[in-house]
């Protein structure tokens, strides 16, 4: 009888652990406003890191300050955000992330802002 109860408890323990382990779903958000586009993604993904987020053209052209972009990748790649602007007018972008993340600026800000926490 005691043996049966122990086996039963092990079965419950296994089921309880299965139930307590949540499926880590992916979450994403995309927003646009005029010449701006922003994307953010979190969670596991099968896509390669450099394909997961929207990137602006990497011109690194400091002569053209019309177009800017910023990309943030967390240390383990599970969270990312990017913002890009189309040419025209005045623009500013900024990005940041948790410890270990990498923030990369494109276009006019490329020389001034490259950070790795």
């Amino acid at each position, binding site marked *: 009888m005691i043996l049966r109860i122990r086996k039963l408890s092990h079965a419950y323990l296994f089921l309880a652990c299965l139930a307590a382990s*949540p499926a880590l779903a992916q979450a994403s958000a995309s927003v646009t*406003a005029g010449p701006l586009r922003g994307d*953010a993604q979190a969670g596991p993904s099968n896509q390669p890191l450099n394909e997961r987020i929207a990137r602006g053209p990497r011109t690194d052209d400091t002569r053209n300050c019309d177009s800017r972009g910023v990309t*943030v990748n967390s240390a383990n790649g599970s969270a990312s955000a990017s913002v890009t602007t189309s040419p025209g007018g005045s*623009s500013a972008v900024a*990005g940041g992330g948790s410890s270990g993340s990498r923030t990369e600026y494109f276009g006019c800000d490329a020389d001034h802002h490259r950070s790795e926490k």
Partner: protein
Amino acid sequence: MKALLPLAFALALATPALAQQGSAAAGSAGTAAVGGNSASTLGAGAVTNSPNGDASALGMGASAAGDNAKTRSGVHGNNNLNGNTMAMAHNGGDMAKSHTVCHDRSDSVDCRTKTMAHEPGGPPVKSTSEGEASIPQQ
């Protein structure tokens, strides 16, 4: 009874530790335009909690076009990220303005954008958009 104790102990240990696992992403954006002036801002953030570690990322952007156009963007913080961005353009009495604020916390992301367009002699036209997402409680 003895056999049930390990089960209760394991559940007590496992449940709180796994309660906040998941991902959330949100953003907001807005544009105001009047008399040849336009101002746009947006923010997009993501946060994830997993056994491999917690991570967050936040991006902010602003764009303005017009005679006097100004833009500014910033993100501050490590674990709790705060983003702020502003765009404004005006000529004479016409003014277009947009402002976005985002908070990227350990288990949620929320962004709010407010816009305003104003012509002389008329009331300001205002709008607000919000985006919010939380990691679901398990």
